[in-house]
């Protein structure tokens, strides 16, 4: 019989047959890495699927999945798909109120969650979600006396009984699956408006997984750490679709706080992280280096200089002088190797970053110490798969060339349009939105504005609808400016304003880790974020960053007019709990602009100070007020210069 590998459950059974004893999933539990082989995972999924079926879960139903990256939650996705159902992973850190919308939108009847925290949130949401009837949990702690919820173990027990009574049920159900069935529904982050459910078929995700795997020659012997939110398309592609396509091993960390240690223990060969993770890692290294002894500091500085000079070229296989090569080899033994080890990146063959722009210094640093960090571009609607950077063609300011099987073109207004097998089937129950984003020729409108450079690589500038004009007529790309600011380690978030105005002003969030450390070294006492942010010394520090950004902008032609004239440091950190950021931590500029209208007025009216009071929501749902008298400062701007010949 010819074996079809066109749905995820079939891929699972394929691996269980071909490599039954190969580790499929690991999880660190009670301090020890527990392993499940492909055959074991297949058995677990089988009992889960049968359990769900016995409890009334039917073809076409949606299964909510909420929690940190736990093996059983990944298996639940497979179980739902085996029955022809659709898993709907949701952001585990969202409060109950945010669950309500998605649960209702997807018409959720069944939910599989990690622990008591999530059960509590679901029970809180339940009165507003008429359909929700069945809740299953993985970790029984604290749930002993709950009624109306069922443990995973019990569900599997029911499943095994059902399986004994209907031994052919599972295989028949898997056989019914089609490649064109919807395999998962991921919700967009809702940067604009309410989140939309993106329906992706088995075929689309498998095409994306296969394309990426061939592009980077992934095999069953690769190993990755699964630590990014399961609701994010990036995790769904790397820890799920590619896991099932390639048959490699996914490793689930012990908890969110142990990721660094777990990364070191596992030493993944394939790694995916948004830029902020790379940034945090580097910040930690830099902070610790400042505490190191003189000799070590000198070694570190000397060899990172060497690496900056020739590391990336060596990685790309370009010609490098013999002396530099020798120095680099020495550096590899003394600095880069140990550093890669500390970062848990000793075994990495390919690392990707995506989701936001990455700072040039940051990007070059990782490449220079021999980590093959690359960028990719894609969105939920395209299975996170549009552009990839080929080995040897890696640049910090582009996102790569069209991935295998993807057609890419630019619209007249610069919007990136893509077509290919990885496109979404539709937005759930939103034919209007589907029609709006997929045109008659089958191209998906990404909403991103980009240019294609001489080397054929795509460069993303901003969201197409965010690109505006200053009153003077020059182009204003707020995201581009914000990223420029965020590339400074002291700046965590920035929000730029200027569309339709004469000049550009910005809000800044300092990075408490980085600035806090800077302050401690100077003996500057502070009590918390608000206090630290208001220090004149900190203002001077940030002004320096803003002015550096301005100096760069002055050389960038049309963008020279976007230099930041005035800025302020916000009194609180922008937070998804206060709706200022999306769950994927993108600034909701419109909302922030409205909420802090009084600050924007102050920026543009030339005031030197402005009082503001803001309500904040704490993690437990309580509310409080943060009040501050914010200083507003001017930054130096520079006369536009012709761009230096590149």
């Amino acid at each position, binding site marked *: 019989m010819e074996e079809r590998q066109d749905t995820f459950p079939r891929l699972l059974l394929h691996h269980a047959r071909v490599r039954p004893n190969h580790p499929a999933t690991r999880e660190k539990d*009670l301090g020890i890495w527990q392993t499940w082989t492909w055959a074991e995972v297949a058995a677990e999924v089988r009992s889960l699927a049968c359990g769900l079926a016995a409890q009334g879960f039917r073809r076409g139903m949606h299964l909510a999945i909420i929690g940190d990256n736990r093996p059983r939650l990944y298996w639940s996705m497979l179980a739902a798909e085996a029955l022809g159902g659709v898993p709907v992973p949701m952001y585990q850190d969202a409060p109950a109120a945010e669950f309500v919308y998605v649960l209702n939108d997807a018409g959720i009847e069944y939910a599989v969650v990690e622990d008591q925290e999530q059960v509590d949130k679901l029970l809180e949401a339940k009165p507003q979600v008429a359909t929700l009837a069945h809740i299953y949990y993985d970790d029984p702690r604290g749930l002993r006396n709950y009624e109306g919820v069922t443990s995973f173990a019990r569900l599997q027990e029911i499943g095994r009984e059902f399986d004994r009574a209907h031994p052919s049920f599972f295989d028949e159900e898997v056989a019914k699956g089609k490649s064109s069935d919807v395999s998962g529904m991921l919700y967009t982050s809702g940067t604009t408006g309410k989140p939309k459910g993106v329906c992706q078929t088995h075929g689309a995700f498998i095409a994306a997984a296969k394309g990426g795997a061939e592009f980077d020659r992934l095999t069953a012997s690769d190993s990755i750490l699964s630590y990014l939110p399961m609701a994010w398309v990036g995790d769904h592609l790397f820890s799920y679709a590619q896991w099932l396509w390639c048959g490699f091993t996914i490793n689930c960390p012990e908890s969110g706080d142990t990721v660094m240690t777990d990364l070191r223990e596992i030493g993944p060969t394939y790694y995916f992280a948004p830029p902020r993770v790379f940034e945090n890692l580097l910040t930690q290294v830099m902070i610790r280096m400042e505490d190191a002894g003189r000799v070590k500091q000198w070694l570190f500085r000397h060899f990172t200089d060497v690496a900056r000079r020739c590391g990336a070229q060596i990685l790309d296989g370009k010609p490098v002088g013999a002396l530099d090569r020798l120095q680099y080899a020495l550096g590899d033994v003394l600095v880069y190797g140990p550093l890669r080890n500390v970062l848990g990146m000793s075994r990495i063959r390919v690392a990707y970053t995506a989701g936001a722009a990455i700072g040039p210094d940051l990007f070059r640093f990782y490449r220079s110490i021999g980590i093959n960090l690359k960028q990719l571009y894609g969105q939920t609607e395209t299975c996170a798969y549009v552009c990839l950077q080929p080995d040897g063609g890696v640049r910090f300011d582009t996102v790569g060339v069209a991935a295998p099987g993807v057609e890419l073109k630019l619209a007249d207004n610069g919007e990136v349009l893509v077509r290919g097998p990885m496109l979404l089937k539709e937005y759930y129950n939103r034919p209007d939105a589907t029609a709006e984003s997929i045109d008659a020729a089958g191209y998906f409108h990404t909403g991103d504005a980009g240019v294609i450079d001489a080397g054929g690589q795509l460069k993303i500038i901003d969201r197409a609808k965010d690109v505006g004009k200053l009153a003077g007529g020059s182009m204003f790309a707020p995201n581009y400016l914000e990223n420029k600011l965020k590339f400074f380690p002291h700046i965590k978030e920035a929000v730029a304003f200027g569309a339709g105005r004469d000049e550009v002003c910005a809000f800044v969030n300092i990075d408490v880790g980085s600035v806090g450390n800077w302050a401690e070294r100077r003996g500057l006492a502070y009590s918390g974020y608000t206090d630290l942010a208001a220090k004149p010394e900190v203002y001077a520090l940030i002004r320096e960053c803003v002015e550096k950004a301005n100096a760069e902008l002055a050389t960038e032609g049309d963008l020279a007019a976007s230099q930041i004239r005035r800025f302020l440091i916000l009194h609180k950190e922008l937070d998804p709990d206060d709706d200022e950021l999306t769950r994927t931590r993108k600034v909701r500029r419109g909302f922030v602009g409205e909420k802090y209208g009084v600050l924007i007025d102050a920026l543009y009216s030339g005031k030197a100070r402005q009082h503001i009071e803001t309500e904040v929501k704490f993690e437990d749902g309580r509310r409080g007020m943060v009040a501050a008298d914010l200083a507003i400062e001017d930054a130096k701007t520079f006369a536009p210069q012709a761009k230096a010949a590149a």
Partner: protein
Amino acid sequence: MTRPIGDVVLALESISLSFGGVKALTDISFDVREHEVRAIIGPNGAGKSSMLNVINGVYRPQQGTITFRGKPRRDMNTHDAAAQGIARTFQNIALFRGMSVLDNIMTGRNLRMKATFLEQAIWWGRARNEELEHRRKVEEVIDFLEIQHIRRTPVGRLPYGLQKRVELARALAAEPSMLLLDEPMAGMNVEEKQDMCRFVLDVNEQYGTTIVLIEHDMGVVMDISDRVVVLDYGRKIGDGTPDEVRGSQAVIDAYLGVAH
């Protein structure tokens, strides 16, 4: 809450304790029931910590009887108390600051280790099996209190709130049937307090551990305790459910002061 509160496990009758001329406790009687959360409150110097010290045998009262698990005695002694399943945490953290979190919690298993000093020193035979078993238990506690990320961190480097949690972990590692907590939430911020409350209740619910705690934060005490005993100047001035105690005039006077 559905955990069943059982019979009296610890009864203190007419306890009086003095240091020279200072009367720390005068004629105090109260009892603790199985599986309950029992709070001792009172202003500074009321004798709360002395009371805990009497219960686990650090102090020997001059008068009174302590009945623990049906066995009356004049006083407890510390080793006996620990062997009977009473564990405690301290008001001012008493951990080994230079040792890792894991090692600190392992010390909580000390009483349950059977291997001789020599066997342990060469880590051979039953010492080895025993350690693996103890380590498993310790890992359960680490998981329970969500401190996996600091397993290898020396205690001295941890913030105060986490040190408190490690202390609780060490007490839990002894698998106590009764846990004495001396101001488990002192000096914590709101979030840390909430976490600690949740852990205390979880311990009580999951393991059925009887908990006797001293706490200053009235909100916390009223929220998590089943019964409260109130001390003032070494005397008992109130005893009952949080609501009863809250309404008692003597208690209000002791806390808010009264015009004489």
